[in-house]
């Protein structure tokens, strides 16, 4: 590992700190109590890291074998636009997820789980900062008319409802969302970061390794609490049920699948050497990996409910339940969790607004479909704005007022009603230093 540590120019660094004070107010608490939960871990620092010594040649696509680009201006215009879009989308997701997590962070029942999420939020802040480093270090004028400061301002001004990707425009309803989001949506992040690790734009590739290292823990911050909850659920805890977990998976998995982009696309990224896989291939791997998580959680449930079973006996019981349904040894299939069909509750991509049910069944009647969804989605979510917007949209599609593609382009558009002070729209995050001092990030060898 050969990392270089960098800071973005002071006025932008201060803009991120100001944003953090608004949307991540527990940041100081995290740092003050860092040694309590992470006594041997390197303390968190808001900075950008670049991995040195990575591959210099483009690794896939039409320019495979050519030297990677160090500057945006070296790329073809369309290629540069794709890179810029990816950097901005990545930045948006990092800041967006913090806004979502903050909504329900305080509701955690276990302090350790809460602290893990808090650390994860701080690291997402660093990842957003990392993307700002890419936007500000390079000259993007050959690609866009928007200046670096304007791009930073635009991203810091986004809120739940105006972010680039749908998963980051959905409110959290309980701490189950915090944990499930880490297990499912951060897993998409892992795929995207892994793919961007080979990017033909070298500064992007060099930004990925440290983000991936941190992302590994973010997934654990989701999966470990879920495993513990499955044990509690098996012991008939009053605090959590497998139904709660199932509904959270039903809420987030469709959004995770959509984060890969349209199933028919992704070829351009491969051609430009920006990612090694098309959307459908990466999405299929992701769906399979989530299936592995679900199976693992079910095993955790069975072993906790029937501790007298050996591993082999528990595995064969799970197989029997999955194959035959019904119940066996006091456990019914309904008590376990299952993967929703990959076309369930989709609003982007090939299955968008096609009224595919949880088990893959097709619906003709929109009201019957919406009733079906309400059975499978968390109560708090279906009572919220995002679901209402979806319901209105799918009714318009069902009445042929809109096509599925047209509807997909408008979703999600979460409207804030009274949740945000109107004057906040006037806030500018990036403020010029009176003395003109504010440029000049500094780099140093980190490790």
């Amino acid at each position: 590992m050969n990392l270089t540590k960098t800071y973005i120019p002071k006025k932008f660094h201060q803009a991120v700190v100001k944003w953090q004070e608004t949307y991540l107010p527990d940041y100081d608490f995290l740092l003050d109590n860092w040694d309590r939960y992470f006594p041997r871990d390197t303390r968190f620092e808001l900075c950008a890291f670049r991995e040195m010594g990575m591959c210099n040649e483009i690794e896939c696509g039409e320019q495979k074998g050519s030297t990677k680009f160090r500057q945006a201006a070296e790329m073809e215009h369309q290629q540069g636009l794709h890179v810029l879009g990816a950097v901005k989308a990545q930045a948006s997701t990092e800041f967006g997820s913090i806004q979502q997590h903050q909504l329900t962070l305080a509701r955690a029942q276990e302090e350790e789980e809460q602290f893990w999420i808090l650390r994860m939020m701080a690291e997402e802040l660093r990842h957003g900062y990392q993307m700002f480093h890419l936007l500000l270090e390079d000259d993007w004028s050959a690609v866009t008319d928007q200046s670096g400061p304007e791009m930073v301002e635009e991203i810091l001004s986004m809120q739940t409802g105006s972010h680039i990707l749908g998963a980051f425009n959905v409110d959290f309803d309980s701490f189950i969302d915090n944990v499930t989001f880490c297990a499912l949506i951060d897993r998409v992040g892992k795929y995207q970061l892994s793919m961007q690790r080979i990017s033909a734009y070298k500064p992007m590739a060099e930004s990925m390794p440290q983000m991936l290292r941190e992302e590994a823990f973010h997934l654990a911050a989701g999966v470990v609490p879920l495993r513990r909850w499955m044990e509690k659920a098996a012991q008939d805890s009053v605090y959590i049920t497998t139904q709660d977990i199932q509904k959270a998976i039903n809420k987030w998995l469709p959004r995770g699948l959509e984060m890969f982009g349209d199933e028919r696309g992704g070829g351009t990224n491969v051609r430009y050497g920006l990612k090694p896989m098309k959307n459908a291939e990466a999405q299929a791997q992701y769906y399979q990996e989530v299936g592995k998580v679900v199976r693992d959680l079910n095993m955790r449930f069975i072993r906790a409910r029937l501790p007298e079973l050996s591993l082999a006996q528990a595995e064969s019981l799970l197989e029997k339940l999955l194959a035959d349904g019904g119940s066996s040894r006091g456990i019914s299939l309904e008590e376990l969790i299952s993967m929703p069909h990959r076309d369930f509750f989709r609003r982007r991509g090939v299955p968008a607004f096609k009224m595919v049910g949880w088990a893959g069944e097709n619906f003709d009647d929109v009201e019957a479909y919406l009733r079906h969804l309400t059975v499978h989605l968390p109560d708090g979510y279906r009572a919220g704005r995002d679901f209402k917007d979806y319901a209105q949209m799918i009714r318009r599609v069902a009445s042929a007022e809109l096509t599925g593609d047209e509807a997909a382009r408008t979703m999600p558009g979460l409207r804030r009603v009274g949740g945000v002070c109107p004057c906040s729209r006037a806030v500018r995050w990036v403020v010029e230093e009176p003395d003109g001092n504010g440029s000049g990030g500094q780099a140093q060898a980190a490790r």
Partner: protein
Amino acid sequence: MTESETPVRIRQLEDTDIGGITALDEKIGGQYRPEIWERRIGYYLRRDPEALVVAELDGKVAGFMLGEVRSGEFGLEEPTGWIEVMGVDPDLRGQAIGRRLAERMLSHFQNQGASSVRTLVDETMTEIASFFDSLGFEPAPLRSFVKSL
């Protein structure tokens, strides 16, 4: 089957391996200890996930090795790789899985700037001692002391 024929994949450990490692630990030690592995893997994943390796065979964890580079401990100021936990499926022993896990981990330690790698082995566990011996490890003058409290 020789080492080259063994279709075992050595790769970085992921969160999805917690169940597999718990199962392997149970197979080796006879105890089901999910909480221990959830906590332990959570710990390692947030420190240096690239140091953590598993051997995968037919989609199942066939072996694993956990460790990290540290410095400043026991008077060892230079960065030192530590192999702390490992396990190989008893049914697959003798197929160089442990060696391949160690090679991957040691290579990572070297990239991290470690000039040596250390581990502690219970003297009664002769099989593990000879495994490390076969990798070129030698007894070190640093002795382990313990006192009951």
